[in-house]
């Protein structure tokens, strides 16, 4: 779909050296993917089998496929092949390294490793010799025809599904030291840690590589054009795909539990994004609102440890939890919102701490009896909707579903609600006013915007969403305890939206996912996990200070700043 007419002169009559080398490298790589890579059992992906491209060999095969572009000169193919070759070399090197390391030495690798290494080098060398003068790929929209809508819809829906499917595969990759038939340990790391982390890294690199190749060939731009034309379809497809996730888990709850936590974390991040991303109010105590909701939910859950003894229907609990939290937002905001920037940050930090200290103390001995103090409100019963018990495993369409899927779906609904609220708000008059306040409060006030009221509204709405998320989370983790609402939690939420890109929904989702999954997937590092996490935060900010998904607007602001901090000076 990206084909354009290529000037006749560019199509060479005789294949040049670059094309030959690239092709040879790619063929070797394809061949190597069908040969065994490991001389011993136990490495994930059945690496001892031949004729079966399992495990990381699949990635090697996948990254060799762009060489098909050699057959027909496409715009951007040289750049695409170079990207593919770079990533291919990285994947091959990484996998060989891990296979050899986990096997206890290079002698234990399988025969496929050698052609793979030679192929990867040929592929790289060849791709660097390809002529570069070819046209840069542009995104292309489909011609306006009767078949455009169904085809585009399929592509859009497929993309959403594919993205989630890739995410699910990555999530499902084992990352802990669970044994799979080996008794070898290598120092502090078990052999499986090494093998699993090697495969996971190769997977992540491959996905990044495929995205790069697609970008160079103009496919991403085409996709953007298409999804931009059917945004609702894209979102709907995404949610349907996400909703189907539990059916792929064979009744296991592990990935669902992680996904559900990402969901609630993301929901809170999107809520915080209203306060920080849209209205520009730096809030370092946001987790307290989440906590208000969690405690409210716990206290009216009918738990035996709740002093109230009240058991409200869950639907009512969510609404009331949100409201109560929103009222707290108003109480906090009213006296403090005239503070500027970092002063507001410390006040919110203070409120967050006051909340934590208070719930830790309201136990009848250090204060009135309400929250059970440090013990928290525990034994929160499972939700039940009619005869449907959230705490039980179910079977649907003949597929076993662990009880975590019930909560996962609940979190998904919550996330959908929070995302919709955010999008509606950000596109409304109120949203634009918030952005105006964020950019220049004085100017906003001068144009007749009631800044105090709107800032208060942002605070209260953010708090309401957090409170609703909190009530849900209390039922998922079954306990509301003060430990869960520390400053670090607020900082992590803030980091999620800054890391993802402020003021955007995909940014908050991505940031929450990365910040949650990164430490989770770094577990194989054991003691060094947080160390690497700290370095990763610093590096991401160093190379993407505007966040992973910068809204177009913010990216522009950032680049203005790059050359001139005082942009007003154009006189």
């Amino acid at each position: 779909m990206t084909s354009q007419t290529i000037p006749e002169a560019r199509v060479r009559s005789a294949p040049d050296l670059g094309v030959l080398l690239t092709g040879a490298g790619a063929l070797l790589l394809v061949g190597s993917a069908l040969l065994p890579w490991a001389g011993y059992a136990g490495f994930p992906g059945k690496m001892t089998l031949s004729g079966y491209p399992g495990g990381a060999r699949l990635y090697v095969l996948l990254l060799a496929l762009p060489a098909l572009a050699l057959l027909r000169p496409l715009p951007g193919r040289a750049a695409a092949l170079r990207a593919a070759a770079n990533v291919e070399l990285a994947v091959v090197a990484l996998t060989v390294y891990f296979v050899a390391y986990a096997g206890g030495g290079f002698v234990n690798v399988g025969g496929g490793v050698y052609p793979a290494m030679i192929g990867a080098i040929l592929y790289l060398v060849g791709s660097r010799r390809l002529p570069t003068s070819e046209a840069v790929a542009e995104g292309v929209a489909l011609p306006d025809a009767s078949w455009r809508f169904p085809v585009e819809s399929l592509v859009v829906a497929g993309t959403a599904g594919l993205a989630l499917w890739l995410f699910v595969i990555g999530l499902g990759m084992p990352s802990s030291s669970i044994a799979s038939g080996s008794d070898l340990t290598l120092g502090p790391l078990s052999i499986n840690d090494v093998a699993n982390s090697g495969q996971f890294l190769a997977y992540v690199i491959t996905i990044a590589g495929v995205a790069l190749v697609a970008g160079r060939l103009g496919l991403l731009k085409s996709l953007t054009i298409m999804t931009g034309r059917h945004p609702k379809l894209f979102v709907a497809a995404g949610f349907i795909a996400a909703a189907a996730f539990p059916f792929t888990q064979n009744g296991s709850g592990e990935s669902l539990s992680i996904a559900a936590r990402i969901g609630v974390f993301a929901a809170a991040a999107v809520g915080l994004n209203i306060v920080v991303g849209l209205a520009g109010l730096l809030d370092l105590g946001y987790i307290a609102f989440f906590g208000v909701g969690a405690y409210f939910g716990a206290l009216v859950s009918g738990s035996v440890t709740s002093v109230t003894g009240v058991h409200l229907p869950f639907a009512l609990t969510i609404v009331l939890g949100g409201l109560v939290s929103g009222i707290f937002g108003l109480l906090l905001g009213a006296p403090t919102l005239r503070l500027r920037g970092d002063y507001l940050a410390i006040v919110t930090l203070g409120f967050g701490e006051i909340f934590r200290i208070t719930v830790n103390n309201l136990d009848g001995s250090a204060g009135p009896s309400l929250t059970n103090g440090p013990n928290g409100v525990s034994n929160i019963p499972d939700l039940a909707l009619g005869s449907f018990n959230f705490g039980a495993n179910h079977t649907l369409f003949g597929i076993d579903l662990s009880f975590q899927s019930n909560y996962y779906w609940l979190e998904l609904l919550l996330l959908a609600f929070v995302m919709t609220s955010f999008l509606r708000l950000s596109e409304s008059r109120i949203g634009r006013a918030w952005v105006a306040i964020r950019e220049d409060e004085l100017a906003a006030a001068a144009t007749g915007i009631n800044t105090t009221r709107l800032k208060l509204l942002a605070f209260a709405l953010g708090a309401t969403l957090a409170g609703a998320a909190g009530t849900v989370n209390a039922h998922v983790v079954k306990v509301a305890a003060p430990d869960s609402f520390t400053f670090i939690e607020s900082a992590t939420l803030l980091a999620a939206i800054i890391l993802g890109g402020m003021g955007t929904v995909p940014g908050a989702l991505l940031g929450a996912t990365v910040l949650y999954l990164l430490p989770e997937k770094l577990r194989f590092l054991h003691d060094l996990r947080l160390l690497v996490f700290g370095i990763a935060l610093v590096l991401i900010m160093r190379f993407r200070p505007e966040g992973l998904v910068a809204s177009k607007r913010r990216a522009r602001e950032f680049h203005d700043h790059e050359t001139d901090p005082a942009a007003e000076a154009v006189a």
Partner: protein
Amino acid sequence: MHPPRLVRIAAPLLIGALVLSACGSKKESGGSSGNKTLTIGVVAPLSGDLSAVGNGIKNSVDLAIKQANEKKTVKGYTLTMDAQDDTAKADVGATVAAKLVASSGVVGVVGPLNSSVAKSVAPVMAQADLVEISPSNSNVDLTGRGALVTGGTQVRPYKSYFRVVASDDIQGPFAAQFAVKTVMAKTIAIVHDKKAYGQGLAEAFAKEATKDGATVLKTETINPGDKDFSATITKLKAQKPDFLFYGGEYPEASLLTKQLKSAGLKIPLMGGDGVQSDEYTKIAGAAAEGDYATALGAPTDSLASAKQFVTDYAAAKYADPIGPYGAYAYDAANVIIAALAKSTASGSKSGQALRDDVTKAVQDANYDGITGKITFDQFGDTTVKVLTVYQVKSGKFVAAKTDTFK
């Protein structure tokens, strides 16, 4: 032309792979000896402020597993460990619990450290009937004992939850009886760290001490992580106590006793099993002299196996100290291992059937551990009511009194 960044990274990696792994011996293909593998999970804080205590638990379980593999305690199986970091947070606990439940090889779990985390871990474990033994939780609600305190009937909330330490309502009163009846304390100051363990213990102590006739001053609290306790000490000093009970763990307790004594309030400090650690005497030095701490079971240093454990732990060169709960974790792991040996002896089982069997076997456990004999009642609590009071003498905790709690 400069090579792009990826090449610059990948090329050395490739070369490194060849060089580093060129040495090494050829392994027979087909894998290892044919032993099947079973896994014991650990849930504890392995990072953050409590990581030293958490890692002490993890390492002790690791040691138990290694020794069991050497001795082939569970015939036909190799044991491995899957340690999960709960970061001392309830919500993380729920996730790692789900993770352990999901991996079919996991047949038992040691942990968690914190009672608050246990409250989100235990429901998930109970759902899968995966046995969980905590080396440190003492909160009364975890086994339904809270109802006893208020005069109700005890109902077990989590069917696969067990613990090898005494709950607060046993340890606290035991310590109080000793303080009032043996030390003859008249005016007792109570301080705790406002955490579930510390507060539960301190409150149980205060209740019993009052009942036994001592004057108990208004409870004071300190914050974990703080170092300067002088304000609290000044406040206490004005009320002239002759005894101090501290509910909490050794890092704060050791600082507290030091500052207590240098402020001129030279009264003994007493703590629970969270204080009864070599680290306490090491940090507090001379100030700890004469202080007390209670712990479950008969004195461990009188048992050869306990001494052996300390020696083996040191020999394994772990990065973290044993900590206050290492010995309990070691016992908890061994109870699970013994249950595994029993469950697998009758034939090869796996999956849920094995988990169910292991839970049953743990319920019926009768194991001679390094902290004493371990058996459980129908609620998952240890039936051992023998506790020991230790006193610091010449920089070491020495057993002062061993008794059965009544």
